């Protein structure tokens, strides 16, 4: 028993189980996958529907800005794209917000975990034989996130404009209207701004890239605020996405005449 054990090549402890976790680790990826699937399916349906996206002075956030020449006339219709009439106005622009969300650091985590299962949960073996992550094509493209951030900002400007226009009376065109749709669009714009501004790319651009905060007090202040919001980026991602969906749903149902025009003023 006193011999030195000069062992063979070292190996890991041979434990066959793919995880020894006893807590319900599978719950969170399942919830995420279910939620994302439902919302994405609805948004696809709504984007291809090409009807019922305008109700009075309200325009569905999925269809704004409405660039195609086939657009239903509204304050947010620009009739700029004559050659893509076979696409719905929503599909023309979907790349912007979709790209922003697809490359968002939170959503990346969400779908890598819940759909790609890489990994489904911490300390749970993933099913793939090889893994290169975002080190090469295709996923290296995720690094374009900061460009989508600027695109998202442009969209936010349009959607803010839509929220302002929603204060117009749909029949008379006079200002001072305030209905359920107005509220939906205003909240929608606010949530999208918070979601975009709280993003990691924005945090980097504002101040994260600096080496010396002390030389840029204003940017440091902004970075501090954004960093605080950034802690809740996941929550903002979900709330804003859900709200966009609900806003479209409201306008769609209202336009289809399912219910009347809810208004306070």
């Amino acid at each position: 028993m006193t011999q030195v054990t000069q062992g063979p090549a070292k190996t890991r402890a041979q434990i066959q189980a793919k995880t020894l976790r006893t807590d319900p680790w599978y719950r969170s990826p399942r919830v995420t996958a279910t939620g994302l699937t439902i919302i994405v399916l609805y948004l696809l349906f709504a984007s291809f529907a090409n009807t019922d996206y305008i109700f009075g002075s309200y325009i569905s956030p999925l269809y704004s800005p409405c660039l195609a020449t086939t657009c239903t006339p509204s304050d947010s219709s620009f009739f700029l794209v004559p050659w893509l009439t076979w696409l719905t106005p929503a599909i023309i622009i979907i790349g912007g917000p979709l790209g922003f969300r697809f490359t968002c650091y939170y959503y990346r985590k969400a779908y890598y975990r819940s759909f790609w299962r890489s990994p489904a949960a911490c300390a749970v073996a993933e099913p793939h034989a090889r893994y290169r992550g975002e080190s090469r094509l295709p996923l290296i493209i995720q690094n374009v996130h900061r460009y989508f951030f600027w695109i998202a900002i442009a969209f936010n400007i349009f959607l803010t404009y839509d929220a302002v226009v929603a204060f117009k009376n749909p029949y008379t065109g006079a200002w001072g209207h305030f209905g359920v749709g107005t509220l939906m669009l205003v909240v929608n714009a606010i949530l999208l701004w918070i979601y975009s501004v709280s993003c990691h790319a924005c945090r980097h651009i504002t101040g994260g890239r600096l080496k010396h905060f002390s030389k840029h007090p204003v940017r440091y202040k902004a970075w501090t605020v954004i960093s605080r919001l950034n802690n809740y980026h996941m929550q903002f991602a979900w709330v804003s996405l859900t709200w966009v969906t609900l806003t479209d749903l409201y306008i769609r149902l209202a336009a289809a005449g399912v219910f009347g025009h809810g208004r306070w003023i």
Partner: protein
Amino acid sequence: MTDIQRYSYDVVVIGAGGSGLRAAIEARLAGKRTAIISKSLFGKAHTVMAEGGAAAAMGNVNPADNWQVHFRDTMRGGKFLNSWRMAELHAKEAPDRVWELEAWGALFDRTKEGKISQRNFGGHEYPRLAHVGDRTGLEMIRTLQQKVVALQQEDAINLGDPEARVKVFAETTITRLIVENGRMAGAFGYQRETGGFVLFEAPAVIIATGGIGKTFKVTSNSWEYTGDGHALALLAGARLLNMEFVQFHPTGMVWPPSVKGILVTESVRGDGGVLRNSEGKRFMFDYVPDVFRAQYAETEEEADRWYDDQANNRRPPELLPRDEVARSINSEVKAGRGSPHGGVFLDIASRLPAEEILRRLPSMHHQFKQLADVDITAEPMEVGPTCHYVMGGIEVDPDTQAAAIPGLFSVGESSGGMHGSNRLGGNSLSDLVVFGRRAGLYAAEYVDATERPAVSDAAIESAVAEALAPFERTGGESPYAVHADLQQTMNDLVGIIRREHEMEAALKELVTLRERAAKVSVTGGRAYNPGWHLALDLRNMLVVAEAIATAALERQESRGGHTREDYPAMSPEWRQVNLICSLDDDGRIKLTRQPLPPMRDDLLALFERSELKKYMTDAELVSLPAGDSAQEGNH
């Protein structure tokens, strides 16, 4: 002897804490091939436990601070038993060593001007501790670790081998120093991973193994702290100094039982925390001893004003040196005014806003939340004394850190003298780097001037036999049982308050424990076998325990980390005496008295005569130089 791996180095540093790493860096910078022996993994050493900071009179927060004031505080803290030369070198060189760490990448907390911020601490007249929140030790060891790596990277690029000139032997324990013809020749030990033996042939060995806390039951120290360096030096023929001085940190956790002893940083008090008994009274006002009367506040109002205006108020008594606070807590608990789990209350919650506590004391908050389920921003902590540090250690030359055997050096907690009878908080981290550098430097010089003694086969054979002995025995006791009894004995009989008959009983018990330890047997193989490791560590703890008990029995006075119930006063006569331990031919502790070297006149002049009177004999006072008062007052 085929299974012994042999290495040849210029300098072997035993211990990879702050002092060992600093020594190794210096030896390597001097061009010496250096081995760092680490009992655990690289970067895990006990230095990470240091929380408060590194004391250095940089004067960043209060420009009135300078090395003279720091020197005075250190001598007062140590009750004038310090090696004054070490205290002087320490006070003078600490700022440079701290700045050097910064140049190696350390990120201390900052002042508004961008300098290193400094905090208040017990016994320090001015805010003096360079710190990073309450994890300064971690910052220090990581910085030194990364400096070692930086040097290895240099060697990788220039010499093609990162380990060409400095190599870390992780999880390697030295069991013997090898002396040939009266000079250091090397060190022998084993590697935990395989249980294989290693021999380091080297003309210079630096002991930087830290302390002895694992000899006691309630301790803030980790398993590594088994007095290895102290014992190795004794066994090799070197001498230990003033081993009776063991510091009990006043604030260790007391509940739950499994974490009893874990440290609660002094910064809690430095940042405004106060001690209260079960009646809600700030009892420390009742315990200010005469020697400190002039410097400490007498009312709560004055004490509270001090945090904002230190020029016009005196310090709160919670910031007395550690020995005073520990004894006071002990008295309160004994008088029946303790907290439910046998400590007292340390309250920061009512003194600072929650955010501020979280910013200044994040790891304390974390520690209490996780281990005791106590939110220190809302409730007080329960604390009590815990064995923390040994002031005694290997007797070394104050300038070079050289021990009695040519080629042997020691630094940090394993060396003695610097802190006298009681160490001030914050002085150990700076001690590590100040004397670490010196040890490395003078070890390198020694190597240049000496031949390389060869290690004899006989020395190796006897080291191997000793290390394997626990495997040869069967049916003996478990080393864990002997260790537990040793810890209990030391805790009960040689603890914070000492009595003659108890120490005599302890010495008797140690004889029995020694016999038991000689019979322990271990099961399992040699690879990573903690039972075997403990069996080997027992020898070290037993010899250290005997040194502590013997010296404590001898010193008939109370001073710093040595409190005798039967001799409660400090004695000027005993201040002139260092107690030296060595081993006799039977391997038992032999005690000799040795006079302290007299302090240099210019250093004496830093104190007022009235203060020296409290420490010195009449004969000493008569021979003081004329113009006896300090150039500046104490305040």
